């Protein structure tokens, strides 16, 4: 099977869908002549031309809105945010126009659109460029939210997102575009709304997504030395949540650690913890632990940033805590 980077898997997904459907186009800053700030659209301008690979000025509210308006009129836009940090200035468009249009018009209009780009902290970018947006975009109905951690998932889920009739937010990671993995040559789709067990195990359920996935897989490896067998679940879709996959694992292990990029107050991690507490209360042998950002603004300095981020060591500590393990 060919080995691809995540950025190549994303490009291939867009390429295949653009070839398949004339209505699909890519729009954003530097997506065309620059070939993408992170090279996720490399070669697409040459192949599809300026009509379908549309460079924009720096105007997120403008081009996010243009995408939504075009989707209402029957096109299928892919809007690239150079990073989701910049989507904050387009938040009104996503919240009030993309997410609400179908319900507000009693089904007269649909908005089949994908907003994609890197999300969460990269490396030493300071507070304004290191934010995880799950808690904002999962916080209201009308959109779907996806976060990917492997080339295989990136391609299969992005293709599904582009074909979806609803607005989809698709989170990638600046520090993971180079992550390599197997991607089948033949076409495949991954259904939206399905979690994936990235490592089966029996003792502790470790729930994660996006940039948290490699952190948790490393923590699970470290936990082996303590004789703790972790099951690592990659949610992949954050809205709608795959409750059943989570509950099934929790009923087996009776212990849960959530480890992800994002602030601790509210948000996706808190939502998952709440659902587990309500549905799996009788199955829990320990309180649910969460490992995420500290509740502070990200600092630039390397040591301060490292202290703020979730790490395999912090995750291991939580895994030991829910196992009542003494090291």
């Amino acid at each position: 099977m060919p080995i691809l980077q995540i950025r190549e898997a994303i490009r291939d997904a867009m390429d295949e869908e653009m070839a398949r459907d004339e209505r699909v186009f890519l729009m954003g800053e530097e997506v065309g002549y620059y070939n993408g700030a992170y090279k996720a659209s490399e070669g697409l301008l040459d192949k599809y031309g300026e009509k379908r690979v549309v460079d924009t000025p720096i105007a997120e509210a403008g081009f996010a809105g243009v995408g939504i308006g075009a989707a209402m009129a029957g096109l299928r836009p892919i809007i690239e945010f150079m990073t989701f940090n910049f989507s904050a200035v387009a938040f009104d468009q996503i919240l009030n126009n993309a997410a609400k249009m179908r319900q507000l018009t009693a089904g007269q209009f649909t908005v089949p659109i994908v907003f994609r780009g890197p999300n969460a902290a990269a490396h030493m970018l300071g507070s304004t460029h290191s934010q995880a947006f799950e808690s904002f975009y999962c916080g209201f109905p009308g959109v779907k939210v996806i976060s990917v951690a492997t080339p295989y998932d990136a391609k299969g889920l992005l293709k599904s997102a582009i074909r979806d009739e609803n607005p989809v937010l698709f989170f990638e990671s600046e520090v993971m575009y180079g992550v390599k993995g197997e991607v089948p040559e033949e076409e495949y789709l991954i259904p939206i709304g399905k979690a994936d067990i990235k490592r089966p195990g029996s003792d502790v359920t470790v729930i994660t997504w996006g940039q948290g996935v490699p952190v948790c897989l490393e923590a699970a490896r470290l936990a082996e030395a303590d004789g703790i067998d972790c099951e690592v679940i990659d949610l992949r879709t954050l809205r709608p949540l795959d409750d059943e996959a989570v509950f099934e694992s929790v009923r087996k292990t009776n212990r849960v650690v959530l480890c992800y990029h994002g602030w601790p107050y509210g948000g996706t991690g808190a939502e998952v913890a709440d659902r587990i507490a309500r549905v799996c209360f009788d199955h829990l042998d320990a309180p649910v632990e969460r490992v995420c950002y500290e509740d502070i603004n990200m600092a630039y300095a390397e040591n301060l940033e490292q202290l703020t981020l979730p790490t395999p060591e912090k995750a291991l500590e939580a895994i030991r805590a829910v196992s009542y393990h003494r090291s």
Partner: protein
Amino acid sequence: MNADTPMPPRTVAAAPAASKGTVHEKEDVIRHYREMLRIRRFEEMAARAYTQGKISGFLHLYIGQEAIAVATADLMRPGDRVVTTYRDHGFALAQGCDSRSCMAELFGKKTGLVGGVGGSMHFFARDKGLWGGHAIVGSHVPLAVGHAFASKYSGDGAVTLCFLGEGAMHIGAVHEGMNLAGLWRLPVVFVVENNQYAMGTPIRRQTPEPDMTVRAPVYGMPSDRFKVEDVFETRERLAAAVERARSEHKPTLVELLTYRFRGHSMSDPAKYRTKNEVEEWKIRDPMSTAEQELREVHGWGDEDFEATDETVVAEMQDAMEFADSSPLPDPEFRFRNHYVEDDLPEQG
């Protein structure tokens, strides 16, 4: 500049000779007069229903500005789109939406334009070319640009007319949308309905430059600016912009100087303006202009106006009774339409 400073003088382009003083076809004048009257009577009826507690939420009346919606409707071809603000009843009626379903939407009833989920600020009727009904100021401008982008992309030949208040001209999304429309030469007409007040804030306290069209060249757009005193003149001058969008794929910025005779919404007593100012604008009410032409040129007498009014009032009375007696939306309807699959039959 404080609120007491007199408004700076503004230049207003003179109406083209072709329009002012021109005699129009009698049927045309009657049709336009009647359409303006329909909007006015509809809204007067709605205002009454509001004070009776039958309509709630926000209700922004278009009274005084009707000529704009009526002139616009006359320029639309199938596939064209009107995208407007929350002050949207006039456009809905002018575009051919049934007064019953409009009133029922205000009443929050199942039979409303969007089944009672939208209310006054969110009228949509895709089949009539009404693409909203948008309630976040300025947020709809990029959307309209997106509709026009789709027209250019697919070559459907449609024109998008995007209406906004002068108050919207100071928010970022409007600048971004207009810049993209100019940059990409999209078939869209931006029509600023300058009714002099952003809620209670007069234009002199909104921006140092009261002429909105000075911004047009910045976006590579031609512009036009005039007082809305005559529905025919309004139609003619908007037609030039629509034609430019249709045949040259070029956007235009039009500023219409107009006035709302009521407050910003039903909860606004409009204490920020003088009676004199309101009366002065009422003299130039386009409905009076049409009435004058009907009387002086086409020989209409009181009995003609009374008969017309009677028919229109009867229509709106019927709309009101229809709305009042319509059922509430089904409880389950609140879950509908959030996702496309909500409305698909269950699989397997």
